[in-house]
Structure formats: C-alpha cells, structure tokens
C-alpha cells in the first residue's frame, strides 16, 4: 500500500514539459486566487494567499526554474505542497493527472548539463508516452 503511494506523482505541465511531484508531499491542488505581494521576498515568490484561513506563500515555478513567463489562465493551478513542514504553493500551467512511475523507470537526472535547472530535478520518469521531469521539492523550497 505505502510503496504504491510512494511511486505516485502529481503530473503538472509547464510549457510543453511534464513535471512530477511526489504525491506524498501534495496537500491539495487549488485554482489561482488573489495573492498579496511580499516585499523583499525573492522574485519567484508571487506572494501569500489565504488558503482556508492559513497564510501560504506562492512560488512561481516558472520563475524558479528560470523559464519564460506565462500569463495565468483558466488552466493555471497552484499545487500546495508540504516538505519538512514548509508549506508552499507552486504555480503550474495546468495539472490534471496522477501517474504511477515505478522506481525502475526513473533515470538519474542528466549531470553533464551545467545549468541551475538540473539541481531542482531528482530524476526523469519514463512512462509509455512521455518523459516526466521529477522535481526535487526540497531544493525548490530552499532559499
């Protein structure tokens, strides 16, 4: 039972790529709401939002991963995650499915590339029809 959950990922899309977040870390997936800007916060922090009475910081995943901006639309979602008791929301272009990726089907992230992007990746998951970039949440929520 637990091993099955360990292998499940919430799949989100940023641009043309698919990204996977371990389902164990995901609290919920929310629609975009109003955020309050936090002065002096890093650029990729959109602000804080009121999630049912709790104040949750929102991280723009595109900015964090150094990707070009994308206007929020009706498909945009916030994936609320909890890593080591840090709760934050990650904005994604869309999020629709949960996939099971077995450990055997996960490759190590490419190490030859010398860009920052790689450090946010914990592995590349292979499914029948697409490659999924698995995110290293711990690194993403570090600053």
């Amino acid at each position, binding site marked *: 039972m637990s091993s099955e959950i360990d292998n499940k990922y919430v799949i989100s899309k940023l641009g043309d790529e698919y990204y996977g977040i371990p389902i164990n870390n995901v609290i919920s997936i929310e629609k975009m709401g109003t*955020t309050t800007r936090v002065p002096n916060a890093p650029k990729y922090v959109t602000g804080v*939002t009121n999630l049912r009475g709790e104040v949750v910081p929102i991280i723009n995943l595109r900015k964090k991963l150094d990707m070009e901006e994308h206007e929020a639309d009706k498909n945009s979602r916030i994936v609320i995650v909890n890593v080591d008791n840090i709760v934050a929301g990650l904005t994604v272009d869309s999020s629709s499915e949960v996939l099971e990726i077995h450990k055997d089907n996960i490759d190590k992230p490419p190490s030859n590339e010398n860009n920052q992007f790689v450090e946010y990746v914990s592995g590349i998951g292979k499914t029948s029809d697409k490659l999924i970039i698995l995110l290293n949440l711990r690194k993403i929520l570090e600053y």
Partner: protein
Amino acid sequence: MMDLDFNQYIDLFVEETKEHLQIMNEALLELEKDITNRSLIDEIFRVAHTLKGMAGTMGFNNISNLTHEMENVLQEIRNNTIKLNEDIIDIIFECFDVLEYSVNFIAVNGEEEEDSYDNLINRLRSITKKEQVQLTVNDGIIPNNKEETSLNQYAINAMKEAEKKGFSSYKITINLNPKCVLKSARAFIIFNTLESMGDIIYSNPPVEDIEDEKFDLEFTIILISKVNKEELKRKLESIAEIDNINISNINYRDLSGEQKNIEFQESKKLKELDEYVINIIEEAKEKGLNSYKITISLSSQCMLKSARAFIIFNTLESMGDIIYSNPPVEDIEDENFDLSFVVILISKVDGYKLKEALEGIAEVEKVDITLIEDVKKAIGKEGTSTKMNVQHKSSPSNMKDNKTNIVNREKKIGKTVRVDIDRLDNLMNLVSELIIIKTRMDDLSESSNRENMVEAIEYLERITTSLHDAVMKVRMVPIERVFNRFPRMVRDLSKELNKQINLQMLGEETEVDRTVIDEIGDPLIHIIRNSIDHGIEMPEERTRLGKPEEGKLILKAYPDGNNVVIEVIDDGRGIDPVKVKDKAIQKEIITEQEGDMLSEDEIVALLFTPGFSTSDKVSDLSGRGVGLDVVKSKIESINGSVEIETNINIGTKFIIRIPLTLAIIQALLVRLGNEIYAIPLSSITEITDIKKEDIRDIQGQEIMLYRGKTIPVVKLNKLLNIDFNEDVDEYVVVVVRKGEKQAGLLVDSLIGQQEIVIKPLGKYLSKIKYLSGATILGNGSISLILDVNSLI
C-alpha cells in the same frame, strides 16, 4: 480502554505533582532561611505524604519509596528525634530534584524511570539510623522486651513529654508471692502506692485484667515520676506479699525506634507479597475461590518444628493451594523459623473447617485465619501500588499499546492551562449570548429592517469583543509560573559561587499568555545567571566597595499597555562600556573608528551581538560565548524587546518587554501605495502630520523633530519597494517606539484601528525582513504585519 484512562490519569498526576512539588520547593527555601519553622516542616511532610499516596496509586513505586523515606526523616524531625541541619536540607533538596526529574520523565514517557534512587534512599535512611544510634549510645541501652513493642504511641508520647519536664520513666516488673490470696487487692495497693509517687502510663496485663485477677503473678507497669529509683524500690518493698521487684530506667527513643523497626518489617513483609501472589489471589477470587491468610503458632515445647510444619503444610495442601509462605518454605524446612509462620492458602473450604483441621494437629498452639477479601485491603497502602502494577502485568498487550501511544506524548503534555471556573462561566455566558443574537439576526433577515439590523450588529460586536477578552483571560497565566523556579536557582548559584544574594520578586501575579510563558523562561534564566555570575561581586569585594555583603537581585514584572515588562535588576558592578568596546574591537565586531562614534548605550547594546562574551574567565555558568544574543533573538521571536541600563558599580537593569498575547492584537491598518499593512497598536505612540520641509537630511539619515527630540524618519515605501508619492507636501507619520527608541514611519494614508488575528508567515518566509506575520482582512485578502522592532 484502560490505556486511555491511564493516560488521562498521568496528565492529572503530572499536573498535580508539579503543583505539590512547587509548594515543597517554596517551603524548602523558606525553611533554609528559618530552620526552626515547624509549620514549614509540616508542610513539606504533608507534600511528601501526598506525593507518596499519589505515586502509589499510579504504580510509580520508585517515587513512592523515595517519598516514603523522606516522610520517615521528616517525621523524625517533627518528633524532635532528629535535629534539622543544612545537610538534611541539602538531601531533601536533592530528593526534590530527583522527584521533579522523574515527574518530567513520566510526563514525557508515560512511565516511571527505572532508577530506584537507592543512593538517596540509603542516605535518607542513614540520617534516621545515625541519629538513633547516637541517642542510644548516649542514653544507655535497655533490653527491649516483647511487651514494650506493644507500647502504644500514647505511652511513648507521654514519656517524651515527661522527659521534657524533667520526669523519669521507669519500667517496673513486680512478682507477687504465689501464696498471695487476693492478687488483685494486692495489685491495687501497689498501684496506689505508685500513683502516689507518679503516673502510671502503661501496664501489662492491662489494669482491667489485673482488677479482674486475670493475671499470673507478674505484671509490668511504666511509671513516670520524679522520685528516684531507690526511693521507689524502698516504697514498694514495704508492701507485703511481693517476691521480687525489678525497676529500670526506660527511654522512649528505644521504644519508638523499636516500633519503627517493627512497622518497617511489617511493611516489608507486605511488600514481599509480590505481584505473582496478588495475581493469583485476584484470579482465585474471580473463580470463586477463597484466599486465607493463616498464621500458625507452634507450641514452644514442640521438638521437631520443621516436621510439624511439614504435617501442617500437607494438611493445608490437601484442602487447597499454598501460594505464599513467610518465612519461605525452604527456611521452614531448615527449621529456620521461630514458632510461628504465615501462609496464604487458596481453597474452596471454608474458614471454620480449616481451623478445625489445623487445630486437630498436635503441638499447634494457635491458629489465626483471615479471609483475604480485598488484596488491596490485605496488604494496605503498599498494596495499592502493587495492585496497579498487577493490572499492567495482566495486560501486557495493553502495555505495548501504551508505549506506542506514549511516543507522541511529549508534545501533548504541559500545554494545559488551569482555568478559574468563573472565567469559564463567563465564556459560557457569552457563547449563549452569541446564540441569542444569531437567532435574532435570523429573524431580522426576514423582516430586513435596517435600523434593527444596525442595532443587532452593534450588539454582536460587543459580544465578540467580550468573547475575545474572555478567551484571552482563559489563556492567561500568572507569570509566577516562570518566576517560581528562580528562588531555587538563585540559591544554588549563590552557594556554588559563594556569593550572598537576596532575591526579591515583585509582581508575580502579572498575567501573560500561556504561549509567552513557555518562551520567556530560558531568556530569563540566562539573564539572571549573568547577573549573579558577572554582575554581583564576591562578598569581600562588596565590603571593600562599601556595599552590603549581600547582593540584591530584583525580579519585577508589571503590565504596561499591551505589553508586560519584566525587569531583572542587580546591584552589582555594572557593565563597563570601555571594556565592552575593547572586547568588541578585539572580536572584530566593530572597528576602532566605529567604536569611537558609538554612544555608551550603543556600546552596551553590543552585548547582544552574536559571539560576544565579556567575562575574562569562562565559568561553569555563563560566559561560554553563547550569550545574550540568544536571549535577544528568543525574545524578539515573540515580538518582545530587551534593553540594558547600567551604571558602573551601581548595578545593571535588564528590561524585557513582551506582548501580553501573541494571537490577537489591536493594530492600525495603513495604506502604502495600493497595499495595506498592519502596525501593532502597542508600539505606536502617536500619529501626526509633518510637512515635507520639516524632514531634514543629515548625512543620509532623514530625521524629524518630535516633541523636542530628533527621531529618525523611516520611508516605508522605500523599504518595501512601493512607489513613493513625492508630490504631497504633508505626510502622515506614525511614531512608533521600541523601548526607549522612537522612529517616525511615513505612510500614505490611514485606514483605521482593527483587531487582527496574527497568522505566521510560515517557515518559508520566516527570514523576510520588516515583517512579523500576516493577518486576514474582512474581505479574505491578506495584509502583512510590519515588524516595528526591525524598522527602528
């Protein structure tokens, strides 16, 4: 089910025990000052006794054993058999520490520690023993006869009193002549003669029996008298028909000692009833079998005691099961016993038949059979503790569950608040009013009468405000809870450092929020240690400086608006700014030029920078470099502030300011650009307007004149990256303060005062500057709370 209950009781036990320990602590500290105060000894005794009982019922045998020994020692002190001295107080203090530690251990682990505190128990025992040995040596030993052990407490007390008043106690054994015809009449004459010389406080056989001639030829009495032994003897010898008179001095101490011993042995005997036995008894009871405690005395003429015992055992075994024997069976086999032994038999046979069967055996002198109806009762107090254990043992699976439950206990325990029932009643009333207004609004929504609606909302507002107040009050605890650990700490420190310190605590009744209480303890300990270690001088140095030998340490708490102020004041050597400056330069915290520019206050404030420690030598207590910076960050983490006021050779004053509560505050909402920020009202001193030209720029620092003082101007827009409207010629200034320091915050406009609920920004944003939290506004959007402390 049992787990749940047990856990629940542990919480209660821990809470109550802590309270009792606190009482003990206070009494001990007082006692140390006034060693002769009997009521304090009584108080400590009472606490030890209560703890023993409580620990006993919970099955915490180690605590209960330790408190039992404490009780013994204290009892002796109360009886004046032991003189209280500093060593004894020290040992009791140690016991207190151990008890406190084990209670905390229980709070965390849900079970008692393995350690049975043998060391302490032995030391306690040695107190009682030592004193007794001394006394017996001093007063000469008197052989103890059996009957003396049955001397009741009354007789002992009477002798004690007598001794105080200078009377002597004599034990007189009189043998009448066998030819004596009217023994009781003769005895009557003897009694009369003795009563004329003193008081008879004891007689064996009892006086009634003597009157009824129910005695052989010999009787023993104890007489309290001023007359000396020879005189007594002479008087008695003048009475006819007396064969022999034996008079000896008697000392109650030997008697009371003897009694103690016997009680002790008795209790030990009972304790020896191990869980196994109790288990079986309980089981037997469930099956409808009876358990009997049988005491059998053999005739003194019995030659082959063990053989006789063997027959008795056989007889008993034929009727049931022997589950316990004292002395143990092996000893009985080896003839290692006196004339009597005790067994516990489980049997269906009833008591009379048993007795009959046993009495039919030759050479059995006396059989005493009691039905054990309740194990608890049978083994007395000790038993209750064992009984708890039994319950555990009988459900090992439960125990395991218990342990897993306990893993998470740590967080749960200690977060309780004891609430005055009046406050809860008040809360209850407000909630019922809330329900009333709800129904009223339901009605209103149908009629939609605007005027009534406004009225109803006003009513609602009043209730919520009172409700908030009431809830706050429920969360409030007197700061005493933090303070009460300090007297002991100061005592220990002053002993350790050979300094004399008089600790004064003021305003302990000041109330603060429960969450604040938890945070404020450590910083205060640190500051107090600092004051004692670095501040207050050695007695010799103090005399040299013309100060009283005894250093003064004042701990003061008082409410100040929405804050509580705690001051730690010592009359020690103070802090030397020159020394601090040198040290700061040496530690490269500041450069020499910077040092020259700083004011004395600013230099002293350097003490709060990380890695600063001025003590030349590192002592055991403080000065390990982990210093005031930790204090400062801890206090600031709860939105408080700390300042130092110091005068060389006069003393130092630490002023800590902490908010009354952390959860809900009054705040001023201000607009900056199109964003809304909240400023805690508690840090605002005034709101005023200022003309653009009144803001002066001095070396890059903008300042303004406020009530004759120049204070720095903070342009919030700049700090918070918001467009600043330069076009206006008048700004709204919110003057805020942090302790004695003030600053003017420029804002675009004011929105108003509001009660806000503080929400943490969360771990992720905890390092963001100038913000202390967030709050959710009426429309659901978030407004950030400005951290005034970091703005000044």
